[in-house]
């Protein structure tokens, strides 16, 4: 699924970036079909929305977008980009708002019944679905935390695998079906860069199922402060080796920078 995120980053890339690819177009479909976006909530939701709109408008594919809280508005950079904000494309996005993990599981499980299956399944804030308040104690992951995370991840991946076969059988150019989900870590805001996988048991489970990781990490360096941007984020695309990687080549590893400006604009730059 990194093909769609890469397309998003290219589409909204810096015009002054030296390494910008002038041919903004769909990269070849990736065999690595599931990506977990790990990072800060507000930003990860914007990245998911950019992915949904870009996939629907640029690639013309159907998108199922699941979130616990309603989408109130699109990111500013989408509102200002009339070429990308194609109304016909937006109609291809189906927003659903399941309240609980059980409702989300039911809605994802029934996607195979749809006569027009999606080619992209997006879930905003897996952690919100997996984390349920425990009466009489602090809110936290319930006792079946790992099993719930595994069930949801496995269902998403199995559904995408099935829908890929359906789309291929129909000769559809919108195959394969991809999955993108975001996960917000429960960490102290002041904590510096850390090894997420080593500290979060749920993330360890999610990593079993998602083939690629998109990590959003805030850049607090001097260079970032000097860039006149409100915030600068480092985006790491990483993944385990897949059949698309050449045998001796490296696994997926790509780094982008994201500049967010006070007026809400977002700009990506390949590092």
């Amino acid at each position, binding site marked *: 699924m990194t093909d769609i995120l890469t397309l998003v980053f290219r589409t909204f890339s810096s015009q002054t970036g030296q390494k910008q690819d002038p041919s903004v177009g769909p990269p070849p479909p990736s065999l690595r079909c599931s990506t977990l976006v790990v990072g800060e909530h507000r930003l990860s939701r914007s990245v998911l929305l950019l992915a949904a709109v870009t996939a629907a408008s640029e690639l013309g594919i159907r998108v199922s977008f699941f979130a616990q809280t309603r989408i109130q508005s699109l990111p500013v950079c989408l509102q200002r980009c009339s070429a990308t904000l194609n109304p016909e494309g937006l109609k291809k996005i189906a927003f659903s708002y399941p309240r609980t993990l059980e409702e989300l599981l039911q809605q994802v499980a029934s996607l195979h019944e749809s006569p027009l299956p999606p080619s992209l399944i997006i879930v905003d804030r897996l952690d919100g679905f997996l984390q349920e308040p425990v009466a009489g104690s602090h809110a936290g992951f319930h006792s079946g935390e790992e099993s719930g995370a595994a069930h949801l991840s496995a269902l998403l*991946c*199995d559904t995408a695998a099935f829908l890929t076969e359906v789309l291929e059988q129909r000769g559809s150019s919108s195959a394969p079906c991809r999955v993108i989900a975001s996960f917000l870590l429960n960490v102290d805001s002041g904590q510096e860069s850390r090894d997420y996988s080593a500290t979060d048991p749920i993330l360890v489970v999610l990593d079993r199922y998602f083939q690629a990781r998109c990590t959003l990490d805030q850049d607090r360096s001097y260079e970032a402060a000097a860039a006149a941007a409100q915030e600068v984020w480092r985006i790491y695309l990483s993944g385990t080796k897949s059949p698309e990687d050449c045998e001796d080549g490296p696994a997926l590893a790509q780094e982008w920078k994201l500049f967010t400006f006070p007026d809400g604009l977002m700009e990506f730059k390949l590092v």
Partner: protein
Amino acid sequence: MRCLLPAVAEQLFRDIRKIYEETTQIPDDLLIALKFVFGSCALQALDLVDQRSVTCLSSPSGRKAFQVIGGSGRLYTCFLSCHYCPCPAFTYTVLRRNQGLLCKHILAVYLCQAMALTQQESVSDQQMSAMLSGTGAP
């Protein structure tokens, strides 16, 4: 089930498939290899195979899933394309402690597939959805 296992396990299932096709038996050396690779759950999985506990369910949409009847009679739904089982052993041994490749139910699915002993059953699309989400059984 698509194989998501180490090469040694994949080869083991290929060997079992070939020999079982010819002799309808699994020789001792392959049983020992099964025990070596999968530990104690190998014997439990073979019990489930003997009891024909694995069923491949399919619905009109073409969606498929495996259902395994556990020793206590409880039904466990497993997916085709990735390893997941709602049983406690999968959660503790595989997910939490990372001490096993899979549980006895998933191993039974692999063995039944290799030995062509999987039962077949049709369900409606709605029943399939309920099973996949863990909210119902056919």
